[in-house]
């Protein structure tokens, strides 16, 4: 999980520059870049101050990326094959046989009957 702010883009959306916001609050512009990159932590108090200047809620300035960085498999070909498998399944694909197999595994592997 990666937590980042989006102060620079939020300022731009409101017709301001990050440098203007920084000046009003007594920050360096580079502080915002580091916060947006996730390399510098930011306090709730700071977020509240920035959100006040931008006229938004502090929550609007936070982005949480649940997807961890980097591939699952080191081998690029295997990673591609996994992704292809993942996204080549059309919605509604019939998979009744999967249940049959799962039940068979249970019966053979540990079904207490």
């Amino acid at each position: 999980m990666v937590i980042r702010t989006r102060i620079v883009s939020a300022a731009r959306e409101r017709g301001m520059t990050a440098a203007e916001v920084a000046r009003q609050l007594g920050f360096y512009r580079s502080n915002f870049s580091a916060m947006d990159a996730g390399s510098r932590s930011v306090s709730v108090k700071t977020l509240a101050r920035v959100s006040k200047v931008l006229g938004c809620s502090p929550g609007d300035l936070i982005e949480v990326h649940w997807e961890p960085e980097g591939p699952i498999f080191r081998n690029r070909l295997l990673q591609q094959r996994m992704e292809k498998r993942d996204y080549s399944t059309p919605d509604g694909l019939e998979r009744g046989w999967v249940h049959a197999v799962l039940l068979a595994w249970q019966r053979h592997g540990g079904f207490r009957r």
Partner: protein
Amino acid sequence: MGPCCSAGVAAPWWVSQVKGRLFKDPYRAVIQRFNRTGVRCVVVGMSGINYYARNPAETFATLDYDIFLEPTQSNVKKAVEGLQKMGFQLGTSAGTFKPGELKQLVRYRKTLVATTPEGLMVELILEVSGYPFSEMIKDSATFTVRGVPVRVARLNKLLRSKKMAGRPKDRRFLQRYEDLLRED
């Protein structure tokens, strides 16, 4: 499980729905019940990964069926009531589940295990490694099992969750999955 029970013996709750089939399908019945009662859930774990197999030879052996429930009291309550009506017995790691424990169960994200006297097991999970429920369900795939839609978390999230859990059995599984992809 084998074919349907012989005449004169009380049939389990799921038999009537799938009479005449080689395998009775209690998993389908559970999902159907959840869909009908509006339980928000997504299939995860090894059972979820198996939906992405292209043929039975590509499936992995697992003894339980993992269902990730949205961890809210109302949602878990609906799921619990549904399973109890179907004849499942519910338990937690601390023993038999009691209705008064629901709040604590949700608060501490404990796992519920639903079993039948025949030994069938469905795990109701309220937390998985790496992802909250909202992330698991938002881009989930929808498969169908004889007309019943089954929502299954994305393969890459299921595998990543295993990677993040990092237990020895998960590492061994990922190694086996790599082998499967090599043969692809």
